[in-house]
């Protein structure tokens, strides 16, 4: 089977993809917004590629009532490798412009999708861990209650409403995925020789 070269437009899209990957490192990827009657202004956890940001100290302070472990960037190995992975994606996107083969783009898309699935599983695992591993001596113990934030979407956790949604970086990654998917569709469906 012959390796088909990708079009100039696809190269431009790949460049944009690379820029999206690279700049997503500068902004938060994911956010968990918390709302409660006592916090009309809201609290937010912002997950960057390399750290936890937002109102971490305040949320840690509140979580001690239910006995949730405190959140610290250094407790997550993910924050040490994520910047390299995403940085690597940016470099691969650039390299693809020079390789310029549609099969290579397809392979990268499959790799990226695999990454996203693994990342989601990892995120769920941590959410589960923090939501269920509670100090048995905590002041507030509600039988059967776990405080696992939703993977994505909304969930009520006692007096807090938790929204787990992508932040700017997350949307950039999503858009990068869509661009790659578009390139693959374009190259396979419309460029049949």
């Amino acid at each position, binding site marked *: 089977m012959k390796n088909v070269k990708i079009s100039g437009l696809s190269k431009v899209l790949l460049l944009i993809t690379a820029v999206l990957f690279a700049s997503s490192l500068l902004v938060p990827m994911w956010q968990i917004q918390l709302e409660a009657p006592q916090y009309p202004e809201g609290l937010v956890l912002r997950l960057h590629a390399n750290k936890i940001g937002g*109102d971490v*100290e*305040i949320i840690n*302070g509140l979580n*001690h*009532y239910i006995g949730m472990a405190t959140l610290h960037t250094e407790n997550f190995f993910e924050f040490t490798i994520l910047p390299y992975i995403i940085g690597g994606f940016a470099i691969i996107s650039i390299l693809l412009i020079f390789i310029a083969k549609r099969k290579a783009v397809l392979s990268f898309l499959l790799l990226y999708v695999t990454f996203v699935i693994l990342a989601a599983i990892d995120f769920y695992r941590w959410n589960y861990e923090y939501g269920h591993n509670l100090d048995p001596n905590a*002041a*507030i113990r509600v039988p059967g209650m776990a405080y696992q934030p939703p993977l994505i979407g909304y969930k009520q956790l006692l007096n807090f409403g938790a929204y787990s949604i992508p932040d700017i970086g997350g949307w950039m990654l999503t858009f990068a995925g869509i661009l790659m998917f578009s390139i693959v569709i374009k190259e396979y469906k419309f460029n049949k020789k």
Partner: protein
Amino acid sequence: MKNKFVKAIFAIVLGSALVTSCKPKNSGDAVSGDAAQKAYVAPGKYDEFYNFVSGGFSGQLSVYGLPSGRLFRVIPVFSVDPEKGWGYSEETKPMLNTSNGFVPWDDLHHVEMSQTNGEVDGRWVFGNANNTPRIARVDLKTFKTAEIIELPNSGGNHSSPFITENTEYVVAGTRFSVPADYSNGDVPINTYKENFKGHISFVKVGKEGEMDLAFQIVTPGVNFDLSHAGKGKSHGWFFFSCYNTEQANTLLEVNASQRDKDFIMAVNWKKAEEYIKAGKGKKQAVKYAHNKWDEKTHTATSEIKNEVLVLDSAELKDICYMIPCPKSPHGCDVDPTGEYIVGSGKLAALIPVFSFDKLMRAIKNKQFEGDYSGIPVVKYEAALHGEVQKPGLGPLHTEFDGKGNAYTTFFVSSEVVKWDIKSLKVLDRVPTYYSVGHLCIPGGDSKKPFGKYLIAYNKITKDRYLPTGPELAQSAQIFDISGDKMQLILDFPTIGEPHYAQAAPADLIRNNGQLKFYKIAENNHPFVTKGEKEAKVTRKGNRVDVYMTSIRSHFAPDNIEGVKLGDEVYFHVTNLEQDWDVPHGFAVKGADNGELLIMPGETATLKWVPKKIGMYPIYCTDFCSALHQEMQGYVRVSPAGSSVPLTWSVGTNLPKATK
């Protein structure tokens, strides 16, 4: 015959109906239909203006919202406030230090907001102490008293704390003339005329607000009452009303009301600055306290200063001029253009309005009618723009709406009267309930008034609210002045006795960089505890220092043993929270002072000298969380000479003592 009788009865009935219908309407009728709507601020919505109202003999400053009249906060200034630990915590005690030692109370009469280019700028509010003469500066980023300066050579600082248009100076004038602190004060009281002097003080205000007593002007002994700075064209001048030019020292009620006219003293402070540059001021030995609050150490320091520069008004020409003003003038108010100076003779039946231009001309052409102890007295007519005829009885104070109108309060006839500054025609009048003193229009004494509301601060409350025994609430009333006619829209009770007040658009202060909490990393308190691991108790002789932290919802340490009778215990409590609106309190049983109220990131110290052997609970006084009631601990007090070792802990029971 019978018919005539019926007719007569009918005539009497009709007549009395007419007479009763002529009876003045009461306040119920004075409130029109849409008043509630105009004063209504829906739950969760903000007011349009902040209103800073003097607390009078409470010594404090209260903060209200306009137009709702809701009380937001009482800022402790000159009086101790056990609720907030003001004057009780070791850190705040120096704020109330004076040359007479610790003074726990004063009488705050007037407030003035800082200005830039003659407009309210939302940085600071100044307040005066009318008893032990002082000026305080409240920082509007923290709503906390940041600085207090005492004024020497003064008795009762009443004509204060009025400011110049760029907050170059905040002034003070002595209400009671007294022998100067640098002269012998041990003289017979009836030697007033020779020994008693007036001093007016010019306190320089720095970029960060820091105050410095730049100079004083010594004047003949009179009572200085109120003052206002010139603005625009009259910037560089200050106007002080004075009474008791009779120089009476007893029964002033009669003896200080003899002369037909007293004075408004015009002070050319730029000229005074020139004299100082030329070295004409005399340094005099005095004693006064200057107290400053430090945001980083959360601690006040008090410094006693020993010198003041004094200029002699009689000797140094062209600084002071006297303008005759009828009948013991009280209010002395300058209109937004700086051209008109309104004097309110409190016993007069007219309001004289002086013209700055005419005053300058009169001084230039030496239109004087003589002098008062060496100060030239300008001819009344030469400086007069005109008189408002028959405005009411007992004019006190005037504010402006920026649309060419003036509003004057009348104590005796209990009303506010609106009049045109240029034509001097009375335009409208409304009754107040009862006997209004000061009034306030937001920005109403600045170059840029916000002429939407007028607040009258009344001296008599009587039947306005549900009765509460002999002592009643003080009262204020809000009028909508956006139309041609003033309309009463709300009564609201106030603390203390409200004298002067100032108001500014809410956004100006809300958006000035309001502090939400203190950063713990920047806390430089000498006894700060920056984490529970640093919590400890130390002993040096009989002084015990407890380095304590508070965070929802426990103290560290919360078990302390080894305190002995005769010890002086200092609880230095650091609130470790770093979030808005999470203060913690601290109280210990038997403390003979107040509580501590500690803002997030702040450290405060309570001194406690236990007087009996036993167990002393400590607890958090400000409901901080669902587990606030659990935020408590114990201090064990043993006899003097006991061998119980000094121990402290939190969360662990130390090994049971052998004894």
